């Protein structure tokens, strides 16, 4: 497990632009796993690509927001960020 643990395998090197998402109240993947990943990566990455962490503090679980419209807003944000990074902005 140590060989594939994302947190334990962070290294001093360049990383691409990263958006990490999580829910404070996810009962299966604890919020601190992505939070620790981001906190530690900030001290190691040698590039200047943006590293972002988005934590849902409002009620949301393992699958993100539970309502279908809220969930679609989250998906739209992720697509917008992803497309924006490859130069598609509208």
């Amino acid at each position, binding site marked *: 497990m140590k060989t594939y643990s994302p947190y334990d395998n962070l290294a001093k090197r360049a990383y691409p632009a990263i958006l990490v998402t999580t829910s404070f109240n996810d009962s299966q993947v604890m919020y601190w796993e992505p939070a620790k990943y981001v906190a530690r990566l900030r001290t190691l990455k040698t590039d200047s690509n943006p590293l972002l962490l988005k934590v849902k503090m409002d009620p949301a679980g393992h699958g993100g927001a*539970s309502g279908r419209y809220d969930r679609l807003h989250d998906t739209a944000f992720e697509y917008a960020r992803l497309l924006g990074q490859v130069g598609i902005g509208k």
Partner: protein
Amino acid sequence: MAVRHWILLGLVSAKMLSSQTPPTAPRVEHREVRHGAAVTDDYFWLREKSNPKVTQYLEAENAYTAAITKDLQPFSDALYKEMLGRIKQTDLSVPTPNRGYLYYSRTEEGKQYPIQCRRKGNMEAPEEVLLDLKFEEIYNDKDELYDIDISKSRDRQYLFLQSEAKDTSETRYLRADRPAGDFSVFLPRAKGHRYYLDHREGLFYIRTSLRLHEDL
């Protein structure tokens, strides 16, 4: 007045600058041995969910993300509208026949959650709403380590409401022909004890992780 404006401007730009700078999480030395290997983890403290410093750090990360992505909102909104435009918002699942009823769930435009319904015999019969997820909260397990699910016994006589964590479970039961009643706890949760319930012809059957007799 001119001086005051200067100070105000100074504060605003300092704030904007700080939200454009990635937050730094404090480091707290932590060492432990896992499976014989020494582990150091300076961010171990982030698991202290009720520690205000944890919330502070997470909120700083959120503020940074909001600052970096603030120009993204119109594009994000446009994508939302485009995707929403491809979804039939008022819709119906394919009805499933079961013991004389047709069961289906349907969504209404503007409503976040589906409504579970059934009709007797055919789809022209009057609709019976079984569960409107917007309004109903059957049971809320306050312990966040537990997941809940609902099922029925194999003989369909009882509803079971199961709370389950990694190594512990607890089942509540309710007669299926009196669904408006209250669930009763079958056996209170005890750490390390997992059990599963079933029912047939007046008898409850239990599968348990406990050794019930020493000679087993």
